[in-house]
């Protein structure tokens, strides 16, 4: 494939035709934050955190699904881009349940990581949260959709990696939700012994079922001082 040369952050870089801006940035050591991008799987372009500025484009473009073309002038970290990313992360945080201190994934949460990188604190927007009951019927996966940021990684992981097609999108707009069957609770009848989606989830929406205290082996340890 013929190489295409583009200008990224003022530097001439080249890459094979057909790769996306995000892939080119990765190859050149430029870190663009993402939430819905999955390497090797087709992009969805739903989170919009990976937007970059391309000269001549009316809007910012999402780098995860925009292929490079010759002569593109790309800015990955201009003030405009950073501000847009901040607004998006704040929007996601405004509807996120915000119980980080008791979340299993608190320290490996991609949303938190991106928020910290972008210097986002408390969102400037009115908080409007989604609250859904925790689904812990399945012995393999615990779902807490209040923490879901609708990145659709679990859907793609289930469809493309596990080929099981358990999840799908349901409802519309703010009420949209990752559903199982006709919006049933995830139980062991629908989804069995796989759990491939758990590591894909950027937040704590999907997690390993925690063992309750009585299941832990051994007598309780009492330290005497």
């Amino acid at each position: 494939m013929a190489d295409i040369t583009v200008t990224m952050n003022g530097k001439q870089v080249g890459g094979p035709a057909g790769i996306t801006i995000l892939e080119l940035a990765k190859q050149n050591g430029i870190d663009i934050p993402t939430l819905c991008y999955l390497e090797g799987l087709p992009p969805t372009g739903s989170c919009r955190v990976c937007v970059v500025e391309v000269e001549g484009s009316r809007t910012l473009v999402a780098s995860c699904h925009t292929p490079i073309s010759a002569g593109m002038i790309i800015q990955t970290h201009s003030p405009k881009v950073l501000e847009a990313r901040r607004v998006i992360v704040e929007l996601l945080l405004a509807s996120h349940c915000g119980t980080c201190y008791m979340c299993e994934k608190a320290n490996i949460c991609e949303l938190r990581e991106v928020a910290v990188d972008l210097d986002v604190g408390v969102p400037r927007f009115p908080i409007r949260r989604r609250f859904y009951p925790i689904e812990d019927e399945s012995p393999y996966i615990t779902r807490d959709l209040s923490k879901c940021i609708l990145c659709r990684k679990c859907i793609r992981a289930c469809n493309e990696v596990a080929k099981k097609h358990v999840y799908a999108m349901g409802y519309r707009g703010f009420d949209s939700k990752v559903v199982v069957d006709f919006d049933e609770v995830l139980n062991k009848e629908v989804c069995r012994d796989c759990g491939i989606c758990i590591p894909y989830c950027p937040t704590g929406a999907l997690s390993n079922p925690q063992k309750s205290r009585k299941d832990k082996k051994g007598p309780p340890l009492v330290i005497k001082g």
Partner: protein
Amino acid sequence: MPEKRIVLKNCGVIDPRRIDTYLQQDGFKAWQKASAMTPEQVIAEVKASNLRGRGGAGFPCGLKWEGARNAPGAEKFVICNADEGEVGTFKDRYILQNDPFSLIEGLAIASHAVGARQAYIYLRGEYRFLLSQLRGAIRQAKEKGFLPHVDIEVREGSGAYICGEEMALMESIEGKRGEIRYKPPFPTTQGLWQMPTVINNVETLMNVAPIILNGAAWFNQIGTERSKGTKVLSVSGDVAKPGVYEIVLGTTLKELIVDLAGAKNIKLVQIGGATGRIVSASMLDTPLAFETMLSAGAITVFDETRDVIDIVHRTMEFLAEESCGKCSPCREGCGIIVNILERFIKGTATPKDITTLEQLSSAMMLTSLCGLGQAAPNSVVDSLKYFRSAYEERMKKVEVVAR
């Protein structure tokens, strides 16, 4: 400038249930002329006419056809977008109700030019009452032998606003959830079932037959330098004579809503429905053309008795309801704009809320995946520009007490 009828010339003249009345009005003459031409000649003629898409974006129709014609693909499709979901538009319904044959003729010519063997008319779910008449018109055209090269199928929508967007419409035809796909690839290279697809508005296809029949030079005489032809507009709201008007592009807004429709005491005009721009009464001399502010064919007039924030709030409520929920700025942002506007309605807003509205609107316009999210804050941005005092009046009153 008075009305000029090109698209609507047969409306009210022919019987939409009988093809022979249409044939008396030079019906399918353009198709006979086009079928004698090569597809390339047809495309060249449409390109020369500078016909721009009437769905709102104003993309040159000829370029779209040429793109799909030249794109590699085992099969090609032509879709007529009759999912007229925009708030305050009813022009396509009027056209379909009164003259379905011109549309079929336009589709036949487009299919010939693009090389499609299958064409779809995506009919808005609420327009189900037009279904039998439309199917009857297709059947009659087929019986008369005017559709030897193409099958036209009518698909019904289910009432989702987003399915008027071309990519969501294609997903809907494919039987999937009505959601946006990212671009590129554009529909002309990978559209319906990943095949090259041309998608045109009803009104665009209505213009095709007159162009082929009378020639591109004739069409170029009408309109402004960059917008040729006429535009069918649905005028509604506080006007004496609401209805469908066909005007030459470049006619001013005043000529349309004051002289033709009879509006009085205008406060603001919303051009292009929910995602359209808002203009104040001082801008009525703006010509209506694609280079200024024309989008979908809705003109909604509001008089002095209406409240700006109520209008914007209602518009945003609608968009929050109709957002597909795929990309985060639109899914979360529309609802948050509604919440902030509610503060203005309740009188609890602070100056900070105006700044937040501006920041959020500009980010949504820059980052959203599709046209809905990008255009959703239009009414907020424009009302903040022209009616800022309305927002300031509604802010929380802080009483300063003298000590």
